[in-house]
């Protein structure tokens, strides 16, 4: 009895193992958290240097239409107006999402409601493959197919928001589709049966019951697509034209936040205004990414209350 008591009260190999294992896991998760904190900290401190060190006004930065941080304007002040890039980034994002959503919804409805398991079995890997195609390949096809076609049809160089939109449309399509399929499939089978039993036909069931029940999930899917489009760099950079001008139309060269970053970071000197201004662009990207995240969380919370 004394012996068992001792055994029960003393630590064993298992206790030590568990302690070690736990420590390893805490360390790993700690690393990831430290990493995210570091990213937020570095980009933020760099990004606000434009305003704190170079005394550019935030308002001027967000609404100025001229970008020439290396030179000075007629008042002897550097020009750091990011509005053209902000507008272009938002334009391609919103346009791509607008075009992609009907196609993605059509695909999702087809895969979850119309096609049997055979159709889904074929389309599922196809969608996965589309997600897996690297963005430079999309950019390359945009450059060698989309841009020349636009050039022929609309004249000009072919580079611009339209080309960017088309490339991003194809890129976000699989993202929105696969998330939409998930949310349609999450609608309980009993809803469909109940609707059909009441005499509704297939489209009525889809439109009035399934799409409405899945609405929060579908919205989330579109927002994820927009987040991807907003942050996409190389594919857009290859077809957008990279001219920091206020976009005047869909087919004139423009520049997004990401494309400006990819082309310029290597050409500026750390700590100077031209460089700091670029980090401010990166900060906008970071904040937008956080914003998309927040919206998704908000929808998730709203959606779950309704249930």
């Amino acid at each position: 009895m004394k012996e068992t008591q001792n055994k029960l009260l003393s630590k064993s190999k298992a206790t030590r193992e568990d302690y070690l294992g736990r420590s390893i896991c805490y360390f790993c998760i700690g690393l990831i958290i430290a990493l995210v904190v570091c990213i937020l900290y570095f980009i933020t401190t760099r990004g606000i240097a434009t305003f704190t060190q170079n005394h550019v006004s935030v308002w001027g930065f967000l609404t100025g239409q001229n970008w020439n941080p290396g030179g000075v304007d007629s008042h002897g002040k550097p020009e750091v107006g990011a509005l053209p890039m902000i507008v272009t980034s938002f334009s391609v994002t919103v346009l791509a999402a607008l075009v992609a959503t009907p196609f993605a919804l059509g695909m999702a409805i087809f895969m979850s409601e119309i096609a049997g398991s055979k159709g889904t079995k074929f389309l599922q890997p196809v969608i996965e493959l589309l997600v897996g195609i690297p963005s430079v390949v999309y950019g390359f096809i945009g450059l060698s197919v989309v841009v020349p076609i636009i050039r022929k049809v609309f004249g000009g160089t072919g580079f611009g928001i339209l080309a960017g939109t088309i490339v991003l449309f194809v890129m976000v399509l699989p993202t929105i589709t696969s998330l939409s399929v998930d949310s349609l499939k999450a609608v309980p089978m009993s809803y469909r049966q109940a609707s059909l039993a009441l005499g509704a036909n297939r489209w009525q069931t889809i439109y009035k019951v399934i799409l409405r029940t899945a609405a929060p999930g579908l919205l989330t899917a579109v927002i994820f697509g927009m987040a991807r489009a907003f942050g996409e760099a190389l594919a857009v950079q290859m077809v957008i034209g990279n001219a920091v001008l206020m976009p005047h139309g869909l087919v004139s060269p423009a520049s997004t936040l990401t494309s400006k970053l990819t082309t310029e970071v290597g050409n500026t000197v750390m700590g100077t205004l031209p460089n700091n201004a670029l980090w401010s662009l990166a900060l906008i990207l970071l904040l937008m990414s956080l914003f998309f995240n927040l919206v998704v969380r908000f929808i998730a919370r709203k959606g779950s209350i309704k249930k």
Partner: protein
Amino acid sequence: MNPKRVNNIATGVIFALVGIVVAILLFLIGYILFNGVPNISWKFLTTSAQAFSSGGGIRDQLFNSLYLLVLTLILSFPIALGAGIYLAEYAPDNWVTNLIRTTIEVLSSLPSVVVGLFGYLFLVIQLQLSFSILSGAIALTFFNLPLLTRSIEESLNSVSSLQKEAGKSLGLSDWKTITKILLPVALPGILTGVILSAGRVFGEAAALIYTAGQSAPAVNYGNWNFLDPTSFLNPMRPAETLAVHIWKVNTESVTPDAHLISSASSAVLIIVILIFNLGARYLGNHLYKKMTATK
């Protein structure tokens, strides 16, 4: 309009949309393969790139991509495994865990160019690792960690809780139960996740431009001393990958046969990723069958 007609029209529209998407897809794959595959030759895969004349190959870029992929997986897998185990098995259900999950989601939704820029700031400049394979691999690790962590967590969660109870009830430590009982069962799912993430890493370029650099200096494939600057294994040398190469020849270079090189490289990239995708599928199924069925 009567409901029946609406139904027919709606169905027609949906079929049309699906048709267009499938057509786009077929065009994409077809374009890459038809333009690219005829240009892939043994010579193309085994000679080095040319800056100003045509006829260059992609030997160094291809090797760099693979080497970077291997280093990235070596760096990210252990961390993701620990983090995945934490989330699946140890994390209590409270606000701290919620915060951790949010943090990981934030990381996974960051644009890769932002991750790359952070890598540039932190690794290349702050830690003075310069444009190097190591910087690139660490940046790709940042980019890869959240997805890999999530797929490991999901694979572990899909293991029946009965297995865990069985281990616990025999007096095994939680750690032993997790590593020796749950992990083997979760292995097919974890492997699938690793291979799929490998595909993403292999095609990533934006995070690499300012970390692994955009140049591929000549290296000696016979030199196995990885500390030697000319060795192909030296992790401190800059390394342009295949994906970065495609971007570069299309935007900045003066190579005369840029289109040919990009289409062939794109085809190589797609084929490798296709192999990863199919491999993940096959290996997942195969291992799953092997684990559950009789020997």
